[in-house]
């Protein structure tokens, strides 16, 4: 029996490998050099080039945009093990993801857990086809990490909610189609009066304003709701209990930002340093930088092992491992430190901001962008609070 399963998995692996080799255009196996090379889909979605279009459409036809969802929801129906094998094969070949969407990574998992069957059958297949580009709306101008202080309100008007307020830090809000939102439906209690609502951003009264970051780019917007009518059936889960869904989603977001599930091929800072700085008596010429790189790479390597261990424990039904807050904290911290060291390695070149040679200051801008990682999806401080209180059980005052 066991043997039969292994045989099946091996043949699945071989088939997947062959299919990917046959269908993934060579240019779609190269390292990403520009965010535009990712296809986000949705009403305004445009393909970057023909290879990207082919790749998306072939994967779509194969039902491998979201390979592990059930087929009735438009997924590929793969088992977790098959899905893992597919991921491994894609990583091996260096295949880019055919489609990126918060609908897949965030809303989908939440809907699978909390939505009605009707809602699932309506929304999930659209997500697997890349038809809707989803945006998330949690934070508000004066709430920041303090979600209990949400002010955007949804008034019950019989057949619809009337939504008024604003959200900040909505990722690519100006490019999205629909937003999943936390709104206040009851002001009498803090955590319980919040609901989880899906809003079409084409509705009257919705507008956005880009937020320019210190990197000079605008991956986020502010989104305004001015008496927006939202049908009642767009409520996911129980009224006033959106907090449960939000917590579930934040966990997913933390893992995403923390870098879990990243299928990029590894690039080592040390190789860049050797190339740029050279060696002296067989060791990197800057011995102080060398020690810092060694320590960073030690932690990166052990962090990767820790993700693996946690997944393996999870598979073995043992959830004693570290929490998502730790992964969010540590994963982002390593990214930040890595970009800081990369600046040291590349010296005068690293801080260029506009030249063509520097790809419009890609490195410096990326460095700046990482400074947001320790803030988005719950600040470093909030993660440490969560670890201290929920995992370590340290008392409140």
């Amino acid at each position: 029996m066991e043997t039969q399963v292994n045989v099946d998995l091996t043949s699945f692996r071989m088939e997947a490998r062959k299919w990917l080799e046959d269908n993934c255009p060579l240019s779609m196996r190269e390292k990403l050099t520009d965010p535009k090379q990712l296809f986000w889909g949705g009403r305004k979605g445009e393909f970057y080039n023909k290879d990207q279009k082919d790749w998306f459409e072939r994967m779509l036809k194969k039902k491998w945009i979201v390979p592990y969802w059930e087929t009735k929801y438009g997924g590929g129906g793969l088992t977790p093990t098959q899905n893992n094998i597919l991921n491994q094969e894609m990583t091996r070949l260096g295949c880019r993801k055919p489609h990126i969407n918060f609908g897949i990574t965030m809303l989908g998992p939440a809907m699978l857990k909390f939505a009605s069957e009707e809602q699932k059958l309506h929304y999930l297949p659209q997500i697997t086809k890349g038809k809707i580009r989803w945006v998330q709306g949690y934070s508000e101008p004066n709430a920041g990490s303090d979600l209990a202080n949400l002010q955007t309100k949804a008034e019950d008007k019989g057949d619809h909610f009337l939504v008024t307020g604003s959200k900040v830090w909505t990722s690519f809000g100006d490019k999205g189609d629909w937003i999943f939102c936390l709104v206040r439906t009851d002001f009498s209690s803090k955590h319980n009066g919040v609901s989880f609502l899906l809003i079409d951003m084409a509705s009257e009264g919705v507008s956005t304003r880009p937020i320019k970051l210190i990197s000079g780019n605008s991956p986020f917007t502010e989104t305004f709701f001015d008496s927006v009518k939202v049908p009642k059936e767009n409520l996911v889960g129980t009224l006033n209990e959106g907090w449960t869904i939000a917590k579930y989603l934040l966990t997913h977001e933390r893992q995403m930002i923390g870098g879990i599930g990243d299928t990029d091929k590894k690039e080592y800072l040390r190789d860049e340093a050797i190339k740029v700085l050279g060696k002296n008596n067989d060791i990197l010429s800057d011995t102080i930088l060398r020690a810092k790189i060694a320590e960073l790479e030690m932690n990166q390597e052990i962090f990767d092992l820790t993700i693996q261990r946690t997944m393996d424990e999870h598979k073995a039904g043992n959830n004693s491992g570290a929490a998502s807050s730790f992964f969010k904290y540590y994963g982002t911290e390593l990214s930040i430190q890595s970009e800081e060291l990369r600046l040291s390695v590349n010296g005068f070149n690293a801080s260029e901001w506009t030249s063509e040679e520097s790809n419009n200051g890609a490195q410096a801008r990326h460095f700046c962008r990482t400074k947001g990682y320790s803030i988005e999806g719950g600040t470093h401080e909030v993660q440490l609070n969560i670890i201290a209180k929920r995992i370590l059980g340290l008392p409140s005052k």
Partner: protein
Amino acid sequence: MALIINEEQQMLKTSTKEFLDLKSPLSSLRVLRDHSYKTHDKDLWMEMVEMGWTALTIPEEYNGLNFGYVGLGQVLEEMGRKLTLSPIISTVLMSSTLISLSKNEILKTKLFQEIMNGSKLVSTAHEEGIQHNPNTINSLLSKQGEGYVLNGKKNFVIDGSISDYLIVSSKDESGSNTMLVLVDSKSDGITYNNKVHMDSRTYSDVSFRNVKVDKLNLLSEENDGDSILEKTFDIARVGLAAEMLGSVQEAFEMTMSYLKEREQFGVKIGSFQALQHRSALMFGEIELCKSIVLKALQAIDSNDSNLPKLASLAKAKLGMTFKLVSNEAVQMHGGIGVTDDADIGFFLKRARVIQRILGDSNYHLDRLAKINNY
């Protein structure tokens, strides 16, 4: 291989914990120390032998339990929690490992049997400077008649004061081959300077002056001395890291309990956010430690060619984390933490000594960079 321990290994870990909770609580260390720095409790050691701890890593063909280093790692981790004094590092982790890599089958069979039945203790004598430095061997093994004579000095021999045999590294007369020989610790020409260190354990400086060595007592053949030694060191580094992992967790847990208990300014001190954040950071570091220790232990059992790198990752990371956690543990215990009455200080002291054995964090960070060619 999945990064988890299997059911058998978990059972071993649990039974070890239960045994040590009962027979070797942290307070045992104080008792032995206060008895003129006794090296260990001999009866307890015989119980450990009976439980098969000295046979764990010995292959079945030599009547061992063949439980592997992941298994031994669980035992060492639990012993690290109690800071248990025993010859397990010298005799099992280092010497038995070295012996298992030798091709001298006659000696191997004999020594394995003596180690498994608890009748003999064995130490390795390999350090010659005040820092771990595997590349410096000045001890000399010269031919004399049918056999050899050994001359040289070794530092910091773990359990050198109690072992029955010493395994000594030396160079042959050509200066190019590393020779590993077994000598009876009572042989003529061997003198000991036993020194108690801050972890209340005894380490010996040992001098060899024209010590006769029978040719049957050679553990290395031509050319394999270095590789045996290097592999022994890597395995031992991982075992030490496993011990440190236990110590780190125990010190951390004791501190978390203290934070939940102790009141100051009218509140539990664990409610202070600054201490909470520092605790959360330690939690994260310890999670990392667990992963690298297990990975490195598995690498020994699976004969993974990445062992040198993983061993250095483990020893470097655990060294840093043990230092961090033992410092924070004492600091968070406040005044009581720096008194001898409190047990938490034992971790501070052990951290500083075990850090140096077979290379401290600086040594292994440097080695990692060298392994990665920079």
